[in-house]
């Protein structure tokens, strides 16, 4: 089931209406059933995978606690089964193609087997979430749960099942186990998140996505047209992915759950490190805690530290898709981080906490980081390496006047749709660090109501005629 459909809205309303009439255990049963209905809506066989993953991780965690002397074996079972499933569905063809290419380069001609199966949506998200449970139990940071139902709800919780945010067991499991109370305040803020999410997806992401798709279908883009398309894609991917997160968080609040934030206005970042504290936060922290720190993190020095950074970012890139351009994208961000850290070490000032004000001094940093981010999005969006090379060698002085005008036109069109995003981000940056009022005034509440109405009106008249899937569904 897709979020941006009326079916989903009706589904959530029905679930919420039944949910609050049930006792806590029955609520969890309802959550599990509705999550499985949600996930198996189009392809019921996906349920076999998520159910298997749940059962294996549940039993592995129980085994670790029951037989601590064998906990490494149980951990291995969890890792092998989760990565095995992910590797089989997501990376098998990539691996086979590359082995074939390497052998061909060595003069050995083999025909690589091709796996023609559909990548189960959300598999990258829920396998990572499930593994956070077993790893935390393995480390002794979490006790293994007795209730299979609770673990199953934790892994399959439908609002964030398909595209995150990835929740830690230590954060979400206690909420699954606890008695939940309906909060009007949470319902209001949940509604706010959902309306904003639907607006971002249907009005912003899908409209600018059409521009990006058109530009990336060109075989002969000019410099201006290409970068207008990259700009459009940057807006699309942020609006699209953050919209999913907002709808997930909003609908969770209606069910009495709180999910962690996944985005913090990433295009206001001042540096690569700052960007990764704001972009796909749940995935970044997962890689930090389960890859970067176990590798030695920043405790290592010199080359080892650089290796830790690069390995983490390469894996993060590969997580996004079985294609070299994602690996390149990860490597690019890893190198950016290394370079900026090296620069800071030479200049001495450390990469301190984010400043709460948005002054003129920050603007060049923000603009510079946004430009670097755009280069990254080009690597991310362009799947053929030859096209990446061509794109990066385009220069403005080879463009025709008509192409320049078309580039400006496309940029303005994409920018126009993105204005609400920029306004929101600038507003948040300007007010960052200021304490929120203890109580919302009627004036603010009125403005909020006005904004809801305007957003809904915009959805009615400006939603794109081309409905695009959420980008992160494919990961």
């Amino acid at each position: 089931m897709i979020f941006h459909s009326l079916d989903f809205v009706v589904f959530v309303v029905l679930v919420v209406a039944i949910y609050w009439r049930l006792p806590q255990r029955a609520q969890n049963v309802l959550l599990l059933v509705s999550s499985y209905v949600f996930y198996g809506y189009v392809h019921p066989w996906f349920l076999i995978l998520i159910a298997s993953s749940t059962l294996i991780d549940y039993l592995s965690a129980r085994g670790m606690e029951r037989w601590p002397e064998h906990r490494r074996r149980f951990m291995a079972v969890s890792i092998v089964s989760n990565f095995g499933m992910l590797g089989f569905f997501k990376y098998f063809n990539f691996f086979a193609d590359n082995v074939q290419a390497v052998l061909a380069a060595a003069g050995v001609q083999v025909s690589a087997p091709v796996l023609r199966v559909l990548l189960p949506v959300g598999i990258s998200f829920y396998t990572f979430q499930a593994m956070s449970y077993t790893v935390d139990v393995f480390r002794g940071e979490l006790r293994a749960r007795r209730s299979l139902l609770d673990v199953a709800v934790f892994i399959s919780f439908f609002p964030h099942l398909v595209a995150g945010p990835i929740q830690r067991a230590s954060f979400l499991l206690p909420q699954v186990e606890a008695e939940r109370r309906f909060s009007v305040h949470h319902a209001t803020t949940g509604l706010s998140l959902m309306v904003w999410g639907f607006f971002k997806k249907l009005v912003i992401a899908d409209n600018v996505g059409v521009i990006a798709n058109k530009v990336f279908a060109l075989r002969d883009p000019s410099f201006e047209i290409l970068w207008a398309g990259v700009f459009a894609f940057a807006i699309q991917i942020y609006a699209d992915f953050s919209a999913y997160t907002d709808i997930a968080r909003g609908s969770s609040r209606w069910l009495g759950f709180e999910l962690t934030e996944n985005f913090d206005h990433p295009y206001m970042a001042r540096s690569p490190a700052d960007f990764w504290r704001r972009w796909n936060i749940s995935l970044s922290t997962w890689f930090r805690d389960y890859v970067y720190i176990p590798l030695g993190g920043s405790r290592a020095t010199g080359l080892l530290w650089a290796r830790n950074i690069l390995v983490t970012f390469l894996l993060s890139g590969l997580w996004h898709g079985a294609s070299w351009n994602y690996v390149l994208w990860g490597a690019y961000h890893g190198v950016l981080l290394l370079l900026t850290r090296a620069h800071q070490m030479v200049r001495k000032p450390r990469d301190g906490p984010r400043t709460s004000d948005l002054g003129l001094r920050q603007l060049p940093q923000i603009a510079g980081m946004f430009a670097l981010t755009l280069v990254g999005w080009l690597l991310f969006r362009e799947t053929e390496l030859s096209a990446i090379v061509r794109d990066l060698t385009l220069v403005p002085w080879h463009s025709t006047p008509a192409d320049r005008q078309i580039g400006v036109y496309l940029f303005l069109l994409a920018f126009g749709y993105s204005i609400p995003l920029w306004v929101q981000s600038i507003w948040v940056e300007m007010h960052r660090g200021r304490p929120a009022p203890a109580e919302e005034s009627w004036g603010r509440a009125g403005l909020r109501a006005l904004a809801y109405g305007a957003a809904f009106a915009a959805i009615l008249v400006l939603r794109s005629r081309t409905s695009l899937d959420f980008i992160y569904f494919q990961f």
Partner: protein
Amino acid sequence: MAPVGRALRHLLLASAGLLLIPLALRGAAALHPIANLQPTYLPSLEGPRERAPFDASRPAALARMQPAYVVIGDSMAGSRIDPAVFARASGESVAPLLYAGSGPAWWYLVLKNWVIASGIHPKAVFVFFRDTNLTNVMFRIDATWSLDTAALAEEDGLNEVVARRRGNTFYELRSGFDRVYASTEARRGIEPLVNEWPARAMFPYRRQREAFMLAVNERFGLDHLRPMDAADMQATEDREADFAAFVDKSQLPLMLRDAQRAGLRLVLVRVQRRPAGGQPPYQSPALQRYVRDLRAYVEARGGVLFDDTGDPAQTLDWYEDGDHLSREGRRRYTERFAERIRLQLP
């Protein structure tokens, strides 16, 4: 956190804003009245809109012509069947009903509202398609310029399968929103303002602006697209190759039912995509299963399925761009096709 009473009032206020403020769209709609706004024949897909008229001349022409063969399809049929060559090779009259960029919804409507409505009884009606198009009613359903020419005021059967396919069970609810807020009408006025502002800002004069928009459209024309995009060559995804899952959400059962009731022999022709590496295009196990299931289903309902895939005669030199055949390929294909129906469809 706000006290419950206050929070509840805020939630009610927010809900009121959400539902009442869009009523302003009715005012915007009144500013942009649409003279020719008509109810759609696909309410599960869209709201009221201006539509092109039904082309009533087609069934009348068919009735006059009384063709022996009718060919329905898009450019796949157009680049394969040369009506003159076909007529000469078969010695029969041929009526091509083709529309480049059309999809299965149009093919169904043409069969129902032109061919069957004309009362003719040709020896066979051929429908050309690629891959799994016949069970994907959404394929090119947005090509309203073609659909309108073959659609009546109400197309309940087609609308139902579109709703099933989209999982859009609640489309009446959405239509209700559209009616309450007059959003379809308001969209006509507001959407161009939002989408055209950059061109208006860059070119204040209408003529300049129109010339510029033409240049933009040309810049994104077929000549400038990457081969895969230009030729629409992306191989079908296996998720579409689940025959059982999609057949009842498609127009195929309606086509077979209506043809059978009208006593027409419906022949579905699955064209071969472009060969690669000297081999016919790869057919995944799922796609092979799909074709087996499709054949069994069609034959059980009185239809015939031709699958060109794997035909050794259809080599790469027959092809021009993408899956389209060259002029010479088209001639050869038509002659071979005429021979094939002589042998297989006596």
